């Protein structure tokens, strides 16, 4: 296994922990308004308060708590989307690649069609049809992402299908499903994993973009993109409303991207830096 | 025509060593190689893969990677090739010293026509002959057509001729050819070898042919150098070496050429393996595989032993015999 970059992995792990258990660490309830402490700057600056380390927003809600709550939703959404998209894509890729013929052609046309469309456009179309909200956002991300897994798995299947040990297995009467699971999948695992990790980064960006536009996560749920959108109006007087959530997004995406790139570099050395 | 011995050599290599990797455990691709090449002479460098022959050539024309450490000297026209600046070297390449690399299939830019690439060399080296004439010199059929074609439309043999034409366009004094026939069909190999001889005969160009194909060396070369694990082990006129090889490795190499009798093909491999270039023994590198090995061989590096008319062999056994 490759040596993974320690810093990035640590950050990813910390984020996941925060997403899962952060609610225990939130100093305040994320949507508790406190009109006595509106637009308080971060601790350390003039006017800052110790109990509001990262400041408060226009309704007096504590930024740190909101960011932690946002971590939960943003990461869970991204994770769910990637997991389901990956599963669907892998299954379809296996089926299409292994069965070949008409099934494969049809699957590939479908995959190509989905890949040919820019994902934000599709996301917008789907949101327009089905409305915003966390469930639909996950659905959108699944629909825009599954195709890449299908294509990856299919090419792996094709390359392995030709190999001698597969031919031997078939001649020996081993069922196709077993061949697929025992031989194809393990070989493709690293690349699927690399793709998935990189996908988490993409999903985070997609979700925050949609939430920023008001088409994603809806209040009272909290997401990084939503915090950014809400803080935008007060940008000129309260920079911390937009800088913290943005930095978190960048940090998360860079960390996941670095880990994913390292995994990908392991199986396809040419694309590594 | 074989060259006149009395003429001073065009290239004199002394104690050339090329090493890679960490200083405490270097990989010595070439160790202490010394030889001289007369003007108009065809020299063959024979050896298996990993014997250091390609590295030796890369060192001469200075295309080794930056990490390589070179020692020794290579005098061409009184100038040490190893000490020249990149700019001075660049001026020599393609004009006085030329080289044809391995893999004719991938040595031409796939996106430009043959004519475009030949003209590029012609412009750079101010060659008066036209592209068509250059292609005719290497006996490429339908040269006008070839100029308009792309590399992928030509066969391996044709591409090799084109590359040779480009390398010899400016009439170099020294031409180095690395495995010129390896990637080609057997029927074409002979033609390419004859082409090289013709180049020497008409232009007086000295040629170094690097190959593991002993038959080719026998056909073409005036002298041959045999390399093993980065060192020269034997050197001399081709005919003499093939008739009476003195070094055990040379003997084994010649014995391993497939022999065809009426009933069967006899293949005789040399038992053992080439040593790891990062862990070369203090003594002769061939000691483990040598049938005539002496105690001294394992302890001391053999030195040159004169073995007849313009012959040298690096072997303690050979010294004992004289």
């Amino acid at each position, binding site marked *: 296994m490759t040596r993974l970059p320690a810093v990035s992995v640590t950050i990813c792990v910390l984020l996941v922990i925060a997403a899962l258990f952060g609610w225990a660490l939130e100093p305040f309830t994320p949507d508790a308004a406190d009109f006595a402490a509106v637009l308080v700057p971060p601790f350390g600056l003039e006017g800052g308060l110790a109990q509001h380390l990262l400041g408060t927003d226009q309704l007096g809600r504590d930024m740190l708590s909101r960011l932690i709550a946002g971590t939960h939703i943003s990461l869970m959404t991204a994770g769910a989307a990637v997991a389901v998209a990956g599963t669907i894509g892998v299954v379809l890729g296996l089926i299409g690649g292994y069965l070949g013929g008409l099934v494969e052609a049809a699957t590939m*046309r*479908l995959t*190509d*069609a989905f890949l*040919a*469309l*820019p994902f*934000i*456009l599709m996301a*917008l*179309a*789907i*949101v*327009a*049809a*089905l409305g915003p909200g966390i469930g639909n956002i996950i659905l959108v991300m699944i629909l825009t992402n599954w195709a890449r897994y299908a294509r990856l798995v299919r090419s792996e299947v094709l390359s392995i299908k030709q190999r001698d040990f597969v031919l031997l297995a078939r001649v020996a009467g081993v069922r196709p499903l077993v061949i697929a699971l025992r031989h194809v999948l393990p070989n493709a695992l690293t690349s699927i994993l690399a793709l998935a990790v990189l996908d988490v980064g993409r999903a985070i960006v997609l979700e*925050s*973009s949609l939430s*920023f*536009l*008001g*088409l994603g996560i809806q209040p009272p749920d909290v997401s990084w993109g939503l915090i*950014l959108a809400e803080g935008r109006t007060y*940008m*000129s007087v309260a*920079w911390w409303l*937009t800088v913290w959530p*943005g930095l978190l*997004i*960048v940090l998360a*995406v*860079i960390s996941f*991207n*670095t880990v994913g790139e390292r995994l990908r570099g392991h199986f396809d050395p*040419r694309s590594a*830096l | 025509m074989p060259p006149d011995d009395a003429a001073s050599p065009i290239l004199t290599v002394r104690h050339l060593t090329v090493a890679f990797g960490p200083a405490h455990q270097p990989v010595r691709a070439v160790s202490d190689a010394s030889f001289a090449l007369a003007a108009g002479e065809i020299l063959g460098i024979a050896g298996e893969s990993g014997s250091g022959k390609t590295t030796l050539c890369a060192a001469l024309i200075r*295309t080794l990677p930056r990490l390589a450490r070179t020692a020794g000297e290579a005098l061409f026209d009184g100038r040490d090739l190893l000490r020249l600046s990149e700019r001075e070297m*660049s*001026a020599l390449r*393609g*004009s006085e010293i*030329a*080289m044809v*690399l391995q*893999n004719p299939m*991938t040595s*031409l*830019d*796939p*996106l*430009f026509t043959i004519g475009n690439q030949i003209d*590029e*060399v012609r412009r*750079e*080296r101010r060659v008066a002959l036209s592209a068509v004439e250059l292609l005719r010199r290497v006996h490429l059929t339908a040269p006008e057509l070839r100029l308009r074609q*792309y590399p*992928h*439309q030509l066969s391996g043999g044709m591409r090799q001729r084109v*590359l040779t034409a*480009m390398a010899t366009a400016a009439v170099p004094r020294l031409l180095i050819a690395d495995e010129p026939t390896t990637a080609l069909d057997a029927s074409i190999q002979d033609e390419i070898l004859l082409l090289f001889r013709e180049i020497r005969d008409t232009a007086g160009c000295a040629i170094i042919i690097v190959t593991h194909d002993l038959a080719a060396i026998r056909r073409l070369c005036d002298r041959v150098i045999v390399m093993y694990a980065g060192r020269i082990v034997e050197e001399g006129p081709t005919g003499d070496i093939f008739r009476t090889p003195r070094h055990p490795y040379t003997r084994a190499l010649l014995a391993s050429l497939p022999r065809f009798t009426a009933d069967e093909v006899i293949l005789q491999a040399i038992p053992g393996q080439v040593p790891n270039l990062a862990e070369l023994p203090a003594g002769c590198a061939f000691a483990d595989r040598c049938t005539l090995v002496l105690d001294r061989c394992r302890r001391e590096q053999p030195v040159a032993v004169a073995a007849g008319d313009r012959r040298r062999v690096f072997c303690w056994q050979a010294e004992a015999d004289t």
Partner: protein
Amino acid sequence: MAMFITRRVGQTLVTLLLLTLMIFTLARLTGDPTPLVMPSEATDADRAFFRQEYGLDRPLPEQYFLFLGNVLHGNLGISFRFREPALGLVLQALGPTMQLAGIAMVVAIVIGMPLGILAAVSPVGRLAIFVRGYASLGQAMPSFWVALMLIMLFAITLRLFPSSGYGSVANFVLPSVTLGFYASASIALLTRANMAEALRSDFVQMERVLGIPWRRIVLKHALRNAAVPIVTYLGLQFGLLLSGAIVTERVFAWPGIGQLVVDAILNRDFPVVQASVLVTAVLFMAINLAVDLIYAVLDPRIRT
């Protein structure tokens, strides 16, 4: 060559067909538009008439073919909100978006390609590390955040450029840099990778040995060979820019398709959404097709 063109065009048409199917399905999923369009005092008879007019009472497959027919005639519906043909609105908004994407593309190439080439030619050292870091950052920062940060710095604090609007040259600067930044990172990475590979190829070594000057080798031979996949990517990138423009346009109040689409969604004006998605997707696919054809022109191995 003809075979190649036919095949590619065929593929594009199939994808387009699937696209229309998807749009149609989504449109029907939004439910019966009648209550949205008809005023509340409309009678049942009025509603029935409306349904008949728009073919909403026919079986679904028939509706699909009607829809397809309409699309081919350029009839993409009437905007619920503006009561104008949706296609017209979209085409009007296309102008500013294309301009923005175009300038952003230029910015991205001007920054990205030289960085990539330099990083490939001298792979060790500060430059390579810088390019790697730049590329990492560029790919991780969501465009709307870059936009906001740029606005905070250049529009609010330094007051150098306007934070929104459309019309003057100054208006172009911040939006195109925002859009171009992300693209320049990808372009730099791709250029570096392809150039590095080209510089390792046998013919580059051969050209060195022939005495051809290094600069010419890099810029004429290596770049040309590396360019083929890069050009393909540029086409793809333009399409991505078009969609990335959507978010950027919102932040800068740029009167392009992005604004149009998001407004339409928030106002449940589906014909406009439908028209925007269709037009942009068609544009995207046309660009990809054109790029594939250019690929064939640039690389003679494909067409001979």
